[in-house]
């Protein structure tokens, strides 16, 4: 008897374990062409597994139908609009997927002699340079696996820099609108964080910044445009304040889709930057990963980059540089998420400099268009121009008893992925919308119509919203129950 009988799962997808029937197989292994010694002759008996892992026994069609059924219970960019603020859910080009699967990229080992992977190394070297050009930095490491990983790497570099100067700086400043990863990464790099409040315009409060910086300031972490979608227009002054105190400026590249070819972090005064290739450079999010978070630095921080860097030798061949005595060390096995880097490189080559600039222009145009059309029905806490994203407030609807969460769930009924909600933390009932450049005016107009309809429903038929979603495979789930009584795996036996 299987412990997972879906008694309460009418119409749901059973577990793969539920399809198990002893005797079925879905695998095909090579014949054993060496002596077929029993396990006990290969290894001491006490090392051998005493009870086999209770994996399912199914045949290939079961596997294919199970995961195909699961895929149909999922929603990706290829299904529809995904205006998820700060996440840059743009279209994932198909050629880039094909490229990453080429055997010359997918079936190579990082410890192969460099002479046998010159194509891969050339790609990495070129990508390092392209990302340096886009960000205005002098040198780039491709190793970090994700944005948060890039943040931590960048902060470890900053720490090594200060230590090389005999300074023990202990504090990292973050705006109150920053991503949660910023303070978490700072803590992982051994720093305490100081939160800088935003001013009435939604920008870094310069007086608060001046009051917070000091000889203990290691760095300020900033996104620009910030998480409200606003450009920190006094960035030069911010940079001067931090630099005069001996601190460095860290650029969280989550919002870089607004500025490619328009303004570069390096020119704004930033010393370190990470980019999320799974945002700006279109590599797929994969349902939560893998991503890649390369880090670029100014010349003064180059000695501290993680090992190894990819270099071009005078004879035109490519290789690794391990001799980096001041490096922070290794932060990722091998050479980072190479398969993601291939896709990002293909993306950059599909656009070139003019195209990348046009990407950012269209992203910003789309966002401003949505903002102007939605401002009639929703509160706009920081009116004016936005960059690639903007933040609305559901305060007006909350007064009617409808929360932002309810409206987000109502969007699901219209086949649209909701925006980011309740972030940034400084906006009440926040709704953070990022359309990206790959959505058409027709899609945006349709989204506006739906958002206006939901605003109307909030006033006139709130029960429709409170009951939403009603068209999805499950209705709202009890998250409190999941955390209170954790069930974290199936009962496989």
């Amino acid at each position, binding site marked *: 008897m299987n412990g997972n009988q879906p008694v309460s799962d009418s119409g749901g997808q059973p*577990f793969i*374990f539920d399809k198990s029937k002893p005797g079925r197989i879905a695998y095909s*292994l090579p014949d054993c062409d060496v002596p077929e010694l029993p396990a006990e002759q290969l290894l001491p008996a006490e090392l051998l597994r005493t009870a086999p892992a209770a994996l399912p026994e199914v045949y290939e069609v079961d596997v294919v139908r199970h995961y195909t059924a699961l895929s149909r219970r999922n929603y990706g960019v290829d299904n529809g609009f995904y205006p998820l603020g700060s996440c840059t859910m743009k279209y994932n080009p198909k*050629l880039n997927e094909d490229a990453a699967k080429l055997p010359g990229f997918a079936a190579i080992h990082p410890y192969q002699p460099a002479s046998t992977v010159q194509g891969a190394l050339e790609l990495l070297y070129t990508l390092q340079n392209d990302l340096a050009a886009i960000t205005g930095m002098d040198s780039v490491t491709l190793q970090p696996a994700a944005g948060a990983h890039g943040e931590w790497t960048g902060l470890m570099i900053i720490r090594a820099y200060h230590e090389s100067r005999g300074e023990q700086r202990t504090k990292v400043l973050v705006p109150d609108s920053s991503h949660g990863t910023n303070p978490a990464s700072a803590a992982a790099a051994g720093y305490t964080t100081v939160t800088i409040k935003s001013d009435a315009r939604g920008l870094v409060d310069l007086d608060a910044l001046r009051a917070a910086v000091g000889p203990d300031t290691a760095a300020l972490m900033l996104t620009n445009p910030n998480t409200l979608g606003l450009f920190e227009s006094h960035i030069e002054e911010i940079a001067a304040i931090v630099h005069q105190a001996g601190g460095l400026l860290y650029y969280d590249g989550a919002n870089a889709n607004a500025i490619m070819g328009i303004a570069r972090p390096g020119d704004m005064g930033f010393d370190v930057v990470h980019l999320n290739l799974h945002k700006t450079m279109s590599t797929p999010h994969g349902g939560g990963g893998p991503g890649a978070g390369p880090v670029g630095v100014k010349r003064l921080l180059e000695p501290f980059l993680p090992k190894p860097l990819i270099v071009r030798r005078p004879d035109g061949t490519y290789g690794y540089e391990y001799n980096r005595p001041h490096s922070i060390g*290794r932060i990722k096995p091998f050479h980072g998420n190479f398969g993601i880097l291939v896709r990002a490189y293909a993306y950059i080559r599909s656009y070139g400099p003019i195209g990348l600039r046009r990407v950012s222009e269209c992203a910003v145009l789309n966002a401003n268009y949505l903002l102007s059309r939605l401002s009639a029905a929703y509160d706009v806490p920081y009116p004016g121009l936005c960059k690639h994203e903007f933040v609305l407030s559901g305060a007006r609807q909350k007064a009617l008893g409808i929360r932002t969460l309810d409206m987000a769930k109502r969007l699901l009924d219209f086949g649209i992925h909701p925006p980011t909600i309740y972030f940034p933390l400084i906006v009440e009932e926040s709704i953070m919308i990022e359309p990206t450049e790959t959505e058409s005016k027709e899609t945006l107009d349709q989204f506006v119509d739906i958002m206006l309809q939901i605003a109307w429903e909030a006033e006139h038929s709130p029960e429709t919203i409170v009951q939403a979603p009603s068209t999805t495979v499950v209705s709202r*789930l009890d998250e409190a129950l999941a955390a209170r009584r954790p069930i974290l795996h199936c009962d*496989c036996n």
Partner: protein
Amino acid sequence: MASYRHRYLPMTDQDEADMLQAIGASSVEDLFRDIPAAIRYHGALPVSAPLDEPALWTHLRELAERNTDLSRCISFLGAGLYDHHIPAVIGHLISRSEFYTAYTPYQPEISQGELQAIFEFQSYICELTAMPVANASMYDGATALAEAGLLAAGAVRRKRLVVSRGVHPEARQLLATTAKGIGLEIVEIDYIAANGTTNLALLEQALNDQTAAVIVQSPNFFGCIERIADIAELAHAQGALLAVSVNPLSLGLLEPPGRLGADIVVGDAQPLGIPQSFGGPTCGFFAVAEPLMRRMPGRIVGQTVDRSGKRGFVLTLQAREQHIRREKATSNICSNQALLALCAAVYLSVMGKQGIQEAALLNARKAHFAASATASIPGYSVPMAAPFFNEFVLRLPDKLSYAALSEKLLSDGILAGYDLEQSYPELAGHMLLAVTEKRTRADIDRLLARLEEYA
């Protein structure tokens, strides 16, 4: 920039004009007026030139073809990344774009497929490792190992990690970088040269009441199987936790660490159907004993019910995570390797209860055959006597350098094993050979013939 056309961009001149009018802006340029002139970038970024789709495909194929991929050579190279058969169904299923173009499942009602797949992945990891709880995956095995050290330090409230030199060198390097971040001390314990496993006498001496965890890998970097139960006893006697990094495929054959006293079990799922891809992306897994559940890093999927009582899945225990806790989070990691966890889950579904055992046994048989055959060639020896899984250390004849041998082998279409001197100076002239189920008798015989020829 009107009139720029690109297959991924829908903006027409008319769209642009209509949208600018709705906004009340005079031009696209006008939308950037909040950026100070001094920091505006003018001109074209010095990035690589654009290519049309046919030219781009040609270019990418040309770059790929300049790499000697594993279909063009016989690989005995492992050292943490292995050449296993990848069942055909995997590529098809993880290429379903409902999976790969999705974001993190923060909206569970439209993410049940992903959430259930990850819930099943967690179940598979629990089954393989015999641990009660697993997370939704980590960047890679080395990161999972470093996070295990951090978790232990936080849970036991001590700052000293005792790590075997048998742990993958790159994982130890990563652990060192990570430990520096929060001020942990790392003590490395040597292995017994004749045996290849951690020196337990040295380990016992190194343990004290400041030790948060003992961290070992089994099979270790030399392929040797560690005495987990004995190590667990030593660690626990000092109130320290035991973290073990494992090759998940080996658990088709070997007793899992969860039954041998491990408190944290981590590893890299690459052997489970994930392409080598020059080292990444792969997928780390992370499993813990029940009391450590709420300290686990990364995402976790849990089962719950919807409003009508129907079974469903959500990301859970999020009170640990950065978007709630900010600087007090258990880890800064806010992504998992969902697509590759899916890959591993599909692999384990394909292999099933029988296949995982057969595959593991097949690896062990081939590696043991290759080990005894190479050791019997005059001049060569297998110096480490401990039991091993699918990887072993081969000592080369004194007059034959690794560099010379590997170059000759490569010219014969054979990718040599890992040069151990790179990470263990005392092991000059020692090569780490991996023999997976994909290596045929003919492949092995070809290696043997060459080794004999060059001895």
